[in-house]
Protein backbone atom coordinates (compact mmCIF):
# COMPACT_ATOMS: atom_id res chain seq x y z
CA UNK A 1 0.00 0.00 0.00
CA UNK A 2 3.06 2.24 0.14
CA UNK A 3 2.45 3.37 -3.42
CA UNK A 4 -0.68 5.18 -2.22
CA UNK A 5 1.37 7.73 -0.27
CA UNK A 6 1.00 10.23 -3.08
CA UNK A 7 -2.73 10.61 -2.30
CA UNK A 8 -1.87 12.41 0.95
CA UNK A 9 0.13 15.11 -0.81
CA UNK A 10 -2.68 17.41 -2.05
CA UNK A 11 -4.08 17.45 1.48
CA UNK A 12 -0.72 18.60 2.84
CA UNK A 13 -0.74 21.54 0.41
CA UNK A 14 -4.39 22.33 1.17
CA UNK A 15 -3.74 22.33 4.91
CA UNK A 16 -0.64 24.47 4.61
CA UNK A 17 -2.58 27.06 2.59
CA UNK A 18 -5.59 27.10 4.88
CA UNK A 19 -3.92 26.60 8.29
CA UNK A 20 -0.32 27.79 8.13
CA UNK A 21 -0.75 30.72 5.73
CA UNK A 22 -3.54 32.44 7.71
CA UNK A 23 -1.60 32.00 10.95
CA UNK A 24 1.36 33.81 9.42
CA UNK A 25 -1.03 36.39 7.98
CA UNK A 26 -2.56 37.06 11.40
CA UNK A 27 0.93 37.44 12.84
CA UNK A 28 1.89 39.89 10.09
CA UNK A 29 -1.34 41.87 10.44
CA UNK A 30 -0.89 42.18 14.19
CA UNK A 31 2.50 43.89 13.93
CA UNK A 32 2.02 45.94 10.75
CA UNK A 33 -0.37 48.38 9.12
CA UNK A 34 -1.04 46.04 6.17
CA UNK A 35 -4.52 46.54 4.71
CA UNK A 36 -5.85 43.06 3.93
CA UNK A 37 -8.58 44.30 1.59
CA UNK A 38 -6.26 46.58 -0.32
CA UNK A 39 -2.86 44.92 -0.45
CA UNK A 40 0.08 47.25 -0.92
CA UNK A 41 3.14 48.55 0.82
CA UNK A 42 3.11 48.30 4.59
CA UNK A 43 5.37 49.06 7.50
CA UNK A 44 5.81 47.39 10.84
CA UNK A 45 4.11 49.24 13.67
CA UNK A 46 3.69 48.51 17.35
CA UNK A 47 0.17 50.00 17.60
CA UNK A 48 -1.23 46.51 18.01
CA UNK A 49 0.32 46.11 21.42
CA UNK A 50 -1.77 49.01 22.74
CA UNK A 51 -4.86 46.90 22.01
CA UNK A 52 -3.72 44.43 24.63
CA UNK A 53 -3.56 47.10 27.34
CA UNK A 54 -7.06 48.52 26.79
CA UNK A 55 -9.12 48.04 29.98
CA UNK A 56 -12.03 46.56 27.99
CA UNK A 57 -9.75 43.93 26.40
CA UNK A 58 -8.06 43.06 29.71
CA UNK A 59 -11.47 42.75 31.35
CA UNK A 60 -12.65 40.45 28.54
CA UNK A 61 -9.54 38.28 28.86
CA UNK A 62 -10.07 37.95 32.61
CA UNK A 63 -13.75 37.07 32.08
CA UNK A 64 -12.80 34.48 29.45
CA UNK A 65 -10.21 32.82 31.66
CA UNK A 66 -12.40 32.85 34.77
CA UNK A 67 -15.62 31.62 33.16
CA UNK A 68 -14.01 29.01 30.90
CA UNK A 69 -11.96 27.62 33.82
CA UNK A 70 -15.08 27.36 35.99
CA UNK A 71 -17.17 25.85 33.19
CA UNK A 72 -14.45 23.29 32.43
CA UNK A 73 -14.19 22.35 36.09
CA UNK A 74 -17.98 21.86 36.35
CA UNK A 75 -18.00 19.81 33.12
CA UNK A 76 -15.16 17.62 34.41
CA UNK A 77 -16.88 17.05 37.77
CA UNK A 78 -20.08 15.98 36.00
CA UNK A 79 -18.57 14.51 32.81
CA UNK A 80 -16.04 12.11 34.35
CA UNK A 81 -18.54 10.26 36.57
CA UNK A 82 -21.07 10.15 33.73
CA UNK A 83 -18.48 8.75 31.29
CA UNK A 84 -17.40 6.25 33.97
CA UNK A 85 -20.97 5.16 34.59
CA UNK A 86 -21.88 4.83 30.89
CA UNK A 87 -18.66 2.95 30.10
CA UNK A 88 -19.22 0.55 32.99
CA UNK A 89 -22.70 -0.48 31.84
CA UNK A 90 -22.83 -4.11 30.75
CA UNK A 91 -25.66 -3.59 28.32
CA UNK A 92 -25.21 -3.37 24.55
CA UNK A 93 -27.28 -0.19 24.73
CA UNK A 94 -24.33 1.83 26.02
CA UNK A 95 -23.21 2.85 22.52
CA UNK A 96 -26.72 4.13 21.95
CA UNK A 97 -26.67 5.98 25.29
CA UNK A 98 -23.39 7.77 24.62
CA UNK A 99 -24.63 8.64 21.11
CA UNK A 100 -27.77 10.12 22.61
CA UNK A 101 -25.54 12.08 24.98
CA UNK A 102 -23.69 13.61 22.01
CA UNK A 103 -26.80 14.16 19.90
CA UNK A 104 -27.72 17.65 21.22
CA UNK A 105 -24.35 18.93 19.95
CA UNK A 106 -25.71 18.25 16.48
CA UNK A 107 -28.64 20.56 16.99
CA UNK A 108 -28.36 24.30 16.42
CA UNK A 109 -26.35 25.87 19.24
CA UNK A 110 -27.75 29.38 18.81
CA UNK A 111 -31.29 28.07 19.26
CA UNK A 112 -30.26 26.12 22.37
CA UNK A 113 -28.74 29.31 23.77
CA UNK A 114 -31.95 31.20 22.99
CA UNK A 115 -33.93 28.46 24.76
CA UNK A 116 -31.88 28.97 27.95
CA UNK A 117 -32.18 32.73 27.55
CA UNK A 118 -35.99 32.58 27.56
CA UNK A 119 -35.88 30.48 30.76
CA UNK A 120 -33.59 32.92 32.54
CA UNK A 121 -35.95 35.90 32.24
CA UNK A 122 -38.35 36.44 35.19
CA UNK A 123 -41.23 36.13 32.76
CA UNK A 124 -40.78 32.67 31.26
CA UNK A 125 -42.50 29.43 30.46
CA UNK A 126 -41.33 28.21 33.89
CA UNK A 127 -44.00 30.45 35.44
CA UNK A 128 -46.42 27.61 34.66
CA UNK A 129 -44.63 25.60 37.35
CA UNK A 130 -44.55 28.55 39.72
CA UNK A 131 -40.83 29.18 39.08
CA UNK A 132 -39.43 32.53 38.11
CA UNK A 133 -35.71 32.93 37.46
CA UNK A 134 -33.90 36.20 37.07
CA UNK A 135 -30.47 35.09 35.89
CA UNK A 136 -29.74 37.13 32.76
CA UNK A 137 -26.52 39.05 33.37
CA UNK A 138 -25.18 36.71 36.06
CA UNK A 139 -22.13 34.46 35.79
CA UNK A 140 -24.39 31.59 36.81
CA UNK A 141 -26.46 31.98 33.63
CA UNK A 142 -23.31 31.81 31.49
CA UNK A 143 -21.98 28.81 33.44
CA UNK A 144 -25.24 26.89 33.12
CA UNK A 145 -25.31 27.67 29.40
CA UNK A 146 -21.69 26.58 28.90
CA UNK A 147 -22.19 23.37 30.89
CA UNK A 148 -25.25 22.53 28.81
CA UNK A 149 -23.44 23.24 25.51
CA UNK A 150 -20.00 21.72 26.21
CA UNK A 151 -20.60 18.82 28.64
CA UNK A 152 -20.75 16.29 25.75
CA UNK A 153 -17.29 17.45 24.56
CA UNK A 154 -15.88 16.58 27.99
CA UNK A 155 -17.73 13.29 28.36
CA UNK A 156 -17.10 11.67 24.97
CA UNK A 157 -13.25 11.52 25.00
CA UNK A 158 -13.24 10.21 28.59
CA UNK A 159 -15.87 7.62 27.66
CA UNK A 160 -13.88 6.43 24.61
CA UNK A 161 -10.78 5.87 26.72
CA UNK A 162 -12.62 4.16 29.59
CA UNK A 163 -14.61 2.00 27.17
CA UNK A 164 -11.46 0.62 25.49
CA UNK A 165 -9.71 0.04 28.80
CA UNK A 166 -8.73 -3.52 29.61
CA UNK A 167 -10.90 -4.39 32.62
CA UNK A 168 -8.64 -7.28 33.58
CA UNK A 169 -6.19 -4.65 34.85
CA UNK A 170 -8.72 -3.59 37.48
CA UNK A 171 -9.38 -7.22 38.43
CA UNK A 172 -5.64 -7.73 38.70
CA UNK A 173 -5.26 -4.72 41.00
CA UNK A 174 -8.04 -6.06 43.20
CA UNK A 175 -6.50 -9.52 43.29
CA UNK A 176 -3.34 -7.84 44.46
CA UNK A 177 -5.25 -6.35 47.37
CA UNK A 178 -6.23 -2.85 46.24
CA UNK A 179 -9.49 -1.41 47.52
CA UNK A 180 -12.03 -0.06 45.03
CA UNK A 181 -10.77 3.44 45.69
CA UNK A 182 -7.12 2.46 45.33
CA UNK A 183 -7.69 0.61 42.07
CA UNK A 184 -9.61 3.61 40.72
CA UNK A 185 -6.88 6.08 41.73
CA UNK A 186 -3.94 3.93 40.67
CA UNK A 187 -5.28 2.12 37.60
CA UNK A 188 -8.41 3.64 36.08
CA UNK A 189 -7.60 7.32 36.56
CA UNK A 190 -4.04 7.27 35.15
CA UNK A 191 -5.16 5.19 32.16
CA UNK A 192 -7.98 7.62 31.37
CA UNK A 193 -5.73 10.67 31.55
CA UNK A 194 -5.47 11.11 27.75
CA UNK A 195 -9.27 11.27 27.57
CA UNK A 196 -9.37 13.80 30.40
CA UNK A 197 -6.77 16.00 28.67
CA UNK A 198 -8.71 15.93 25.37
CA UNK A 199 -11.99 16.55 27.18
CA UNK A 200 -10.61 19.48 29.17
CA UNK A 201 -9.25 21.14 26.05
CA UNK A 202 -12.34 20.44 23.93
CA UNK A 203 -14.36 22.19 26.67
CA UNK A 204 -11.91 24.93 27.61
CA UNK A 205 -11.34 26.26 24.08
CA UNK A 206 -14.94 26.73 22.92
CA UNK A 207 -16.00 28.21 26.25
CA UNK A 208 -13.03 30.59 26.26
CA UNK A 209 -13.81 31.82 22.75
CA UNK A 210 -17.62 31.79 22.81
CA UNK A 211 -19.27 35.01 21.75
CA UNK A 212 -22.95 34.39 21.01
CA UNK A 213 -23.43 32.58 24.33
CA UNK A 214 -22.14 35.35 26.66
CA UNK A 215 -23.81 37.99 24.49
CA UNK A 216 -27.23 36.41 24.94
CA UNK A 217 -26.99 35.06 28.48
CA UNK A 218 -25.38 38.16 29.98
CA UNK A 219 -27.71 40.53 28.17
CA UNK A 220 -24.60 42.08 26.58
CA UNK A 221 -23.08 42.93 29.98
CA UNK A 222 -20.25 40.41 30.22
CA UNK A 223 -17.75 40.56 27.38
CA UNK A 224 -15.54 37.60 26.59
CA UNK A 225 -12.52 37.65 24.30
CA UNK A 226 -14.67 36.20 21.50
CA UNK A 227 -16.97 39.23 21.69
CA UNK A 228 -13.99 41.57 21.27
CA UNK A 229 -12.65 39.60 18.29
CA UNK A 230 -16.08 39.50 16.62
CA UNK A 231 -16.45 43.22 17.19
CA UNK A 232 -13.03 44.03 15.70
CA UNK A 233 -13.34 41.79 12.64
CA UNK A 234 -17.04 42.02 11.81
CA UNK A 235 -18.37 45.30 13.19
CA UNK A 236 -15.63 47.91 13.41
CA UNK A 237 -13.34 46.31 10.79
CA UNK A 238 -10.25 46.89 12.92
CA UNK A 239 -8.51 43.89 11.37
CA UNK A 240 -5.02 44.70 12.63
CA UNK A 241 -6.19 45.22 16.21
CA UNK A 242 -8.26 42.06 16.01
CA UNK A 243 -5.23 40.17 14.71
CA UNK A 244 -3.17 41.22 17.74
CA UNK A 245 -5.85 39.98 20.14
CA UNK A 246 -6.14 36.75 18.13
CA UNK A 247 -2.37 36.24 18.44
CA UNK A 248 -2.66 36.46 22.22
CA UNK A 249 -5.44 33.89 22.06
CA UNK A 250 -3.51 31.65 19.67
CA UNK A 251 -0.53 31.52 22.03
CA UNK A 252 -2.84 29.99 24.65
CA UNK A 253 -4.24 27.59 22.05
CA UNK A 254 -0.77 26.45 20.91
CA UNK A 255 0.21 25.56 24.48
CA UNK A 256 -3.01 23.57 24.90
CA UNK A 257 -2.59 21.92 21.49
CA UNK A 258 0.93 20.74 22.30
CA UNK A 259 -0.46 19.24 25.52
CA UNK A 260 -3.06 17.21 23.58
CA UNK A 261 -0.50 16.01 21.05
CA UNK A 262 1.75 14.93 23.91
CA UNK A 263 -0.97 12.68 25.31
CA UNK A 264 -2.69 11.55 22.12
CA UNK A 265 -0.59 11.67 18.96
CA UNK A 266 -3.10 10.49 16.39
CA UNK A 267 -6.16 12.13 17.86
CA UNK A 268 -7.85 8.87 18.83
CA UNK A 269 -9.73 10.56 21.67
CA UNK A 270 -11.04 13.40 19.51
CA UNK A 271 -14.03 11.49 18.18
Amino acid at each position, binding site marked *: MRRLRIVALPYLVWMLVLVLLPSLLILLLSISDLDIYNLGAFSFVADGFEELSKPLVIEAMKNSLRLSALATMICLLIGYPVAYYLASLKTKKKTMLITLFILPVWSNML*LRIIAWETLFFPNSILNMFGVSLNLIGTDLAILIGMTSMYLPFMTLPIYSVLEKMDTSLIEASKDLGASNMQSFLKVTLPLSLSGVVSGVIMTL*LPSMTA*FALPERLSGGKTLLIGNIIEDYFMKTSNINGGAMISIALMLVIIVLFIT*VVHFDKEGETLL
Partner: protein
Amino acid sequence: MSLWRKSPLLILTIFAFFIIYLPIMIIMLFSVNGSEKDYSFDSFSLKWYVEMFEDPQLFEAIRNTLMIATISTLIATIIGTLTAIGIHSLSKKNRTNMMILNNIPVINPDIVTGISLMLVFSLLPISFGMPTMLLAHIFFSIPFVVLTVLPKLKELDPNLYDAALDLGCSRFGAIYRVIIPSIKTGMLAGALIAFTMSIDDFVISYFTSGQGFQNVSIWIYSRIGRKSFSKGVYAYNTLVVFVTVVLLLISSRKNKKTIVRKEEK
Protein backbone atom coordinates in the same frame (compact mmCIF):
# COMPACT_ATOMS: atom_id res chain seq x y z
CA MET B 1 -20.84 -2.36 41.47
CA SER B 2 -23.18 -2.51 44.39
CA LEU B 3 -26.35 -0.45 44.28
CA TRP B 4 -25.32 2.12 46.91
CA ARG B 5 -22.33 3.06 44.82
CA LYS B 6 -24.27 2.99 41.60
CA SER B 7 -27.22 5.20 42.46
CA PRO B 8 -25.35 8.54 42.89
CA LEU B 9 -23.75 7.92 39.50
CA LEU B 10 -27.12 7.10 37.99
CA ILE B 11 -28.67 10.26 39.43
CA LEU B 12 -25.77 12.38 38.15
CA THR B 13 -26.12 10.81 34.69
CA ILE B 14 -29.84 11.56 34.60
CA PHE B 15 -29.08 15.13 35.68
CA ALA B 16 -26.47 15.44 32.91
CA PHE B 17 -28.96 14.21 30.30
CA PHE B 18 -31.48 16.67 31.69
CA ILE B 19 -29.19 19.70 31.46
CA ILE B 20 -28.15 18.99 27.86
CA TYR B 21 -31.63 18.00 26.67
CA LEU B 22 -33.62 20.77 28.38
CA PRO B 23 -32.98 23.40 25.65
CA ILE B 24 -33.96 20.88 22.95
CA MET B 25 -37.19 20.10 24.80
CA ILE B 26 -37.91 23.82 25.16
CA ILE B 27 -37.39 24.33 21.41
CA MET B 28 -39.76 21.42 20.69
CA LEU B 29 -42.31 22.95 23.02
CA PHE B 30 -41.99 26.35 21.31
CA SER B 31 -42.38 24.69 17.91
CA VAL B 32 -45.93 23.61 18.79
CA ASN B 33 -46.82 26.70 20.81
CA GLY B 34 -49.91 28.52 19.55
CA SER B 35 -48.87 31.69 21.37
CA GLU B 36 -46.76 34.38 19.74
CA LYS B 37 -44.90 34.85 23.04
CA ASP B 38 -42.05 32.67 24.25
CA TYR B 39 -43.12 33.04 27.89
CA SER B 40 -46.58 31.54 27.70
CA PHE B 41 -48.04 28.39 26.23
CA ASP B 42 -51.75 28.62 25.58
CA SER B 43 -52.59 26.15 22.85
CA PHE B 44 -51.14 23.39 20.72
CA SER B 45 -50.61 24.45 17.14
CA LEU B 46 -48.67 23.30 14.11
CA LYS B 47 -48.72 26.71 12.46
CA TRP B 48 -44.93 27.20 12.77
CA TYR B 49 -44.41 24.06 10.70
CA VAL B 50 -46.27 25.85 7.90
CA GLU B 51 -44.63 29.21 8.65
CA MET B 52 -41.23 27.62 8.06
CA PHE B 53 -42.07 27.35 4.33
CA GLU B 54 -43.92 30.66 4.14
CA ASP B 55 -41.34 33.05 5.56
CA PRO B 56 -39.35 33.60 2.35
CA GLN B 57 -36.07 34.54 4.04
CA LEU B 58 -36.19 31.67 6.52
CA PHE B 59 -37.06 29.25 3.74
CA GLU B 60 -34.16 30.51 1.66
CA ALA B 61 -31.81 30.14 4.63
CA ILE B 62 -33.01 26.55 5.13
CA ARG B 63 -32.47 25.81 1.44
CA ASN B 64 -28.97 27.31 1.56
CA THR B 65 -28.13 25.30 4.67
CA LEU B 66 -29.21 21.99 3.16
CA MET B 67 -27.52 22.73 -0.14
CA ILE B 68 -24.18 23.64 1.49
CA ALA B 69 -24.40 20.62 3.81
CA THR B 70 -25.13 18.19 0.96
CA ILE B 71 -22.41 19.42 -1.40
CA SER B 72 -19.76 19.87 1.29
CA THR B 73 -20.47 16.42 2.77
CA LEU B 74 -20.13 14.72 -0.63
CA ILE B 75 -16.88 16.47 -1.47
CA ALA B 76 -15.42 16.15 2.05
CA THR B 77 -16.24 12.42 2.20
CA ILE B 78 -14.48 11.74 -1.12
CA ILE B 79 -11.42 13.89 -0.40
CA GLY B 80 -11.29 12.80 3.24
CA THR B 81 -11.39 9.10 2.33
CA LEU B 82 -8.65 9.40 -0.30
CA THR B 83 -6.59 11.47 2.12
CA ALA B 84 -7.03 8.88 4.87
CA ILE B 85 -5.85 6.17 2.45
CA GLY B 86 -2.82 8.30 1.64
CA ILE B 87 -2.06 9.05 5.28
CA HIS B 88 -2.46 5.38 6.18
CA SER B 89 0.24 4.37 3.70
CA LEU B 90 2.77 6.88 5.05
CA SER B 91 5.65 5.90 7.32
CA LYS B 92 4.77 6.04 11.02
CA LYS B 93 6.55 9.36 11.64
CA ASN B 94 4.98 11.12 8.65
CA ARG B 95 1.60 9.69 9.53
CA THR B 96 1.82 11.13 13.02
CA ASN B 97 2.82 14.52 11.61
CA MET B 98 -0.04 14.51 9.10
CA MET B 99 -2.50 13.59 11.86
CA ILE B 100 -1.26 16.46 14.01
CA LEU B 101 -1.89 18.79 11.06
CA ASN B 102 -5.26 17.12 10.42
CA ASN B 103 -6.34 17.67 14.02
CA ILE B 104 -5.56 21.39 14.12
CA PRO B 105 -8.97 22.41 12.72
CA VAL B 106 -10.69 19.89 15.02
CA ILE B 107 -9.18 21.43 18.14
CA ASN B 108 -8.99 25.04 16.97
CA PRO B 109 -11.86 27.15 18.28
CA ASP B 110 -14.34 28.02 15.52
CA ILE B 111 -13.61 31.71 15.84
CA VAL B 112 -9.93 31.21 14.99
CA THR B 113 -10.79 28.94 12.03
CA GLY B 114 -13.39 31.52 10.97
CA ILE B 115 -11.07 34.53 10.92
CA SER B 116 -8.22 32.48 9.39
CA LEU B 117 -10.39 31.41 6.46
CA MET B 118 -11.84 34.90 6.13
CA LEU B 119 -8.33 36.34 5.76
CA VAL B 120 -7.19 33.72 3.20
CA PHE B 121 -10.39 34.09 1.18
CA SER B 122 -9.98 37.85 1.07
CA LEU B 123 -6.69 37.25 -0.73
CA LEU B 124 -8.34 35.05 -3.37
CA PRO B 125 -10.11 36.49 -6.40
CA ILE B 126 -13.51 35.18 -5.30
CA SER B 127 -16.27 37.24 -3.74
CA PHE B 128 -17.65 36.26 -0.34
CA GLY B 129 -20.88 34.29 -0.39
CA MET B 130 -21.91 30.77 -1.33
CA PRO B 131 -18.51 29.61 -2.73
CA THR B 132 -16.51 30.80 0.29
CA MET B 133 -18.96 29.27 2.76
CA LEU B 134 -18.87 26.00 0.80
CA LEU B 135 -15.05 25.93 0.82
CA ALA B 136 -15.05 26.64 4.56
CA HIS B 137 -17.48 23.77 5.23
CA ILE B 138 -15.41 21.37 3.10
CA PHE B 139 -12.34 22.51 5.05
CA PHE B 140 -13.76 21.82 8.51
CA SER B 141 -15.45 18.54 7.45
CA ILE B 142 -12.48 16.69 5.92
CA PRO B 143 -10.58 16.19 9.24
CA PHE B 144 -13.61 14.41 10.72
CA VAL B 145 -13.85 12.05 7.73
CA VAL B 146 -10.10 11.31 8.06
CA LEU B 147 -10.58 10.60 11.77
CA THR B 148 -13.44 8.14 11.15
CA VAL B 149 -11.92 6.37 8.13
CA LEU B 150 -8.36 5.90 9.45
CA PRO B 151 -9.26 3.40 12.23
CA LYS B 152 -11.11 1.27 9.63
CA LEU B 153 -8.01 1.26 7.41
CA LYS B 154 -5.92 0.06 10.33
CA GLU B 155 -8.18 -3.01 10.61
CA LEU B 156 -7.70 -3.76 6.92
CA ASP B 157 -5.23 -6.43 5.76
CA PRO B 158 -2.63 -4.47 3.70
CA ASN B 159 -2.00 -7.51 1.48
CA LEU B 160 -5.52 -7.23 0.03
CA TYR B 161 -4.60 -4.13 -1.94
CA ASP B 162 -1.39 -5.66 -3.30
CA ALA B 163 -3.27 -8.85 -4.17
CA ALA B 164 -5.79 -6.82 -6.17
CA LEU B 165 -2.93 -5.15 -8.06
CA ASP B 166 -1.31 -8.54 -8.75
CA LEU B 167 -4.62 -9.79 -10.09
CA GLY B 168 -4.69 -6.98 -12.60
CA CYS B 169 -6.62 -4.17 -10.94
CA SER B 170 -5.54 -0.60 -11.64
CA ARG B 171 -4.60 1.52 -8.61
CA PHE B 172 -7.95 3.24 -8.43
CA GLY B 173 -9.74 0.04 -9.36
CA ALA B 174 -8.12 -1.59 -6.34
CA ILE B 175 -9.14 1.32 -4.10
CA TYR B 176 -12.68 1.19 -5.43
CA ARG B 177 -13.17 -2.58 -5.31
CA VAL B 178 -11.09 -3.63 -2.33
CA ILE B 179 -10.45 -0.75 0.05
CA ILE B 180 -13.69 1.24 -0.18
CA PRO B 181 -16.02 -1.70 0.58
CA SER B 182 -14.03 -2.49 3.76
CA ILE B 183 -14.11 1.08 5.09
CA LYS B 184 -17.71 1.91 4.15
CA THR B 185 -18.93 2.17 7.75
CA GLY B 186 -16.17 4.65 8.60
CA MET B 187 -17.03 6.74 5.55
CA LEU B 188 -20.69 6.71 6.47
CA ALA B 189 -19.95 7.82 10.02
CA GLY B 190 -17.67 10.57 8.72
CA ALA B 191 -20.31 11.75 6.26
CA LEU B 192 -22.91 11.82 9.02
CA ILE B 193 -20.66 13.93 11.26
CA ALA B 194 -19.77 16.24 8.37
CA PHE B 195 -23.41 16.74 7.45
CA THR B 196 -24.60 17.49 10.98
CA MET B 197 -21.63 19.80 11.63
CA SER B 198 -22.41 21.67 8.44
CA ILE B 199 -26.14 22.09 9.12
CA ASP B 200 -25.52 23.57 12.56
CA ASP B 201 -22.40 25.60 11.97
CA PHE B 202 -22.66 29.23 12.91
CA VAL B 203 -19.30 30.81 13.71
CA ILE B 204 -17.25 29.68 10.70
CA SER B 205 -20.13 30.40 8.31
CA TYR B 206 -20.62 33.82 9.88
CA PHE B 207 -17.01 34.84 9.23
CA THR B 208 -16.79 33.37 5.72
CA SER B 209 -20.14 34.28 4.13
CA GLY B 210 -19.98 38.04 3.77
CA GLN B 211 -23.23 39.93 3.27
CA GLY B 212 -26.22 38.48 1.53
CA PHE B 213 -25.74 34.73 1.74
CA GLN B 214 -27.35 33.36 4.89
CA ASN B 215 -27.63 29.88 6.34
CA VAL B 216 -30.06 29.16 9.17
CA SER B 217 -27.58 30.07 11.94
CA ILE B 218 -26.70 33.42 10.40
CA TRP B 219 -30.40 34.05 9.81
CA ILE B 220 -31.02 33.39 13.53
CA TYR B 221 -28.10 35.54 14.72
CA SER B 222 -29.16 38.51 12.63
CA ARG B 223 -32.71 38.32 13.98
CA ILE B 224 -32.48 37.34 17.67
CA GLY B 225 -34.83 39.51 19.68
CA ARG B 226 -36.26 41.19 16.57
CA LYS B 227 -39.73 41.06 15.10
CA SER B 228 -38.48 39.35 11.96
CA PHE B 229 -37.42 36.30 14.05
CA SER B 230 -39.88 33.71 12.77
CA LYS B 231 -40.69 30.84 15.12
CA GLY B 232 -40.73 28.63 12.05
CA VAL B 233 -37.06 28.06 12.90
CA TYR B 234 -38.09 26.14 16.06
CA ALA B 235 -40.13 23.84 13.81
CA TYR B 236 -37.17 23.43 11.45
CA ASN B 237 -34.81 22.56 14.31
CA THR B 238 -37.26 20.03 15.76
CA LEU B 239 -37.49 18.30 12.37
CA VAL B 240 -33.69 18.24 12.09
CA VAL B 241 -33.40 16.58 15.52
CA PHE B 242 -35.95 13.91 14.53
CA VAL B 243 -34.23 13.18 11.23
CA THR B 244 -30.85 12.92 13.01
CA VAL B 245 -32.26 10.42 15.51
CA VAL B 246 -33.76 8.31 12.72
CA LEU B 247 -30.48 8.33 10.75
CA LEU B 248 -28.58 7.30 13.88
CA LEU B 249 -30.97 4.42 14.54
CA ILE B 250 -30.56 3.23 10.95
CA SER B 251 -26.77 3.48 11.02
CA SER B 252 -26.52 1.69 14.37
CA ARG B 253 -28.66 -1.13 12.97
CA LYS B 254 -26.36 -1.35 9.93
CA ASN B 255 -23.35 -1.55 12.24
CA LYS B 256 -24.96 -4.42 14.10
CA LYS B 257 -25.51 -6.25 10.82
CA THR B 258 -21.84 -6.00 9.81
CA ILE B 259 -20.79 -7.27 13.21
CA VAL B 260 -23.09 -10.27 12.84
CA ARG B 261 -21.67 -10.98 9.38
CA LYS B 262 -18.13 -10.98 10.77
CA GLU B 263 -19.14 -13.41 13.46
CA GLU B 264 -20.72 -15.76 10.92
CA LYS B 265 -17.44 -15.95 9.06
